[in-house]
């Protein structure tokens, strides 16, 4: 497979919530192995856009093609896409009634029908990858926010996704826990994972991203390499946004 093989294609995508247009004519192509950071003011449609990619939201117009499957009402295609796409949420969303290891094993066992010993082995190796194997038998409520988010990343990885979506993964964390999560994400990026990451961690964007996408009012205003994006923003709205978040 060549490096410029597109794995996510959004073409003229519109999304409405009632009368409110959350996305308008979104065009985005993400190639295999590319790391995209999406930023923009709150309410600009960042989360909605990545939630459309694994069909947590349905788009109203346009086309979304993920790993060769077009997202329509066909359950088969939705399942196929969800098998290839892992997602990490702002609020972790670990299953509170299951231990960490059971959180990791649930989907592989139910969806992939992986036998228990194999699922367990995979889960342990993923916990090692996010550096918390010693927490395997605990419940989510016994872990810190940073640990919970790393478990959430490990849980998504247990399904062997080709693509990872991150929806503000560090926004709910105390400041001292942000780096442990970003470290894990940086490791993933180095290993060649295709990633779309909604975040305001500009240090992460600079060091890891291949491209930064800036959204405002449901539109993609600008897409550029991080260097260019930060040093030489093209649009007024981008400049304003950067001046606001980089003010301190």
């Amino acid at each position, binding site marked *: 497979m060549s490096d410029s093989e597109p794995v996510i294609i959004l073409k003229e995508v519109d999304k409405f919530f009632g009368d409110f247009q959350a996305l308008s004519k979104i065009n985005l192509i993400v190639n295999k192995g590319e790391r995209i950071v999406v930023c923009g003011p709150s309410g600009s449609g960042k989360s909605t856009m990545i939630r459309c990619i694994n069909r947590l939201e349905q788009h109203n117009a346009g086309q979304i093609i993920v790993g060769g499957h077009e997202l329509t009402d066909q359950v088969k295609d939705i399942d196929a896409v969800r098998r290839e796409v892992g997602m990490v949420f702002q609020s972790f969303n670990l299953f509170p009634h299951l231990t960490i290891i059971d959180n990791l094993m*649930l989907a592989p066992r139910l969806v992939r029908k992986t036998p228990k010993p194999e699922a367990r082995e995979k889960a342990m190796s993923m916990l090692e990858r996010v550096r918390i194997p010693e927490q395997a038998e605990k419940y989510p409520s016994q872990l810190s926010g940073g640990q919970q988010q790393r478990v*959430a990343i490990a849980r998504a990885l247990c399904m062997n996704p080709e693509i990872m979506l991150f929806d503000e993964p560090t926004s709910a964390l105390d400041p001292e826990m942000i780096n442990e999560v970003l470290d894990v994400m940086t490791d993933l990026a180095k290993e060649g994972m295709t990633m779309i990451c909604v975040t305001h961690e500009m240090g992460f964007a600079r060091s890891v991203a291949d491209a930064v996408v800036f959204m405002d009012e449901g539109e993609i205003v600008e897409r550029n390499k991080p260097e260019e994006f930060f040093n030489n923003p093209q649009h007024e709205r981008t400049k304003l946004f950067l001046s606001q978040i980089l003010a301190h």
Partner: protein
Amino acid sequence: MGESVDLIIESIPQILMGLGLTLELLFLSGILGLMLAITVLLMRISGNPLLTWPAMIYIYIFRGTPILIQIFIIYYGLSQFEWIRESILWTLLREPFGCGILALTLNTGAYVSEILRGGVLGVDRGLLEAGSALGLSKRHRFIYITTPIAVRLAIPAYSNDVISLMKSTALVSTITLLDMMGYARIVYAETYAPYEVFTSLMVIYLIITWIIQRAFGLFEKRMSRHIRK
């Protein structure tokens, strides 16, 4: 005073002759009611109006009317209809016991289905989204995520309803059944000592309530083990 205490103690064994029937009514209608409640809940949340509407009408009727009327309609009312007397239902409805079970089951089923719905609605939407994102089907999400969490959320209200059902069983004494209340009324008719007889009866109900509370307390503790640090 000594006489009263003697009477209270003496009436207890007689009232306890009805304990078996009281417990039978409680367990049978409790279990059947729970099964009915789960069915009605699934209808109610199915999103299909053909299922949702009958469920809502059933809940409205049985929550919205006194249980004593429900018992009377089932016991005295239904036998008026010849087609019921000729149907297979008659084997159940011919006996006051069957009528009692049916009335209590229908009544508790309506309440419990709403209690369970409260639990289902209390499940954080984000958890179901996480399940979807991991590729879990709607059925898997319901069984492995919604159900265990909803059950824990519903336990306090459900235990309340079981206690309420236990007390409602006393009403079947009005349709000739000899539960504890039925026996207490016999003892009262013989002794004309309402204070003593009904005090004994109250104490027995309180003991049963205590056992139910304790059992649900333990169950709740077990279902909440993931929350304790």
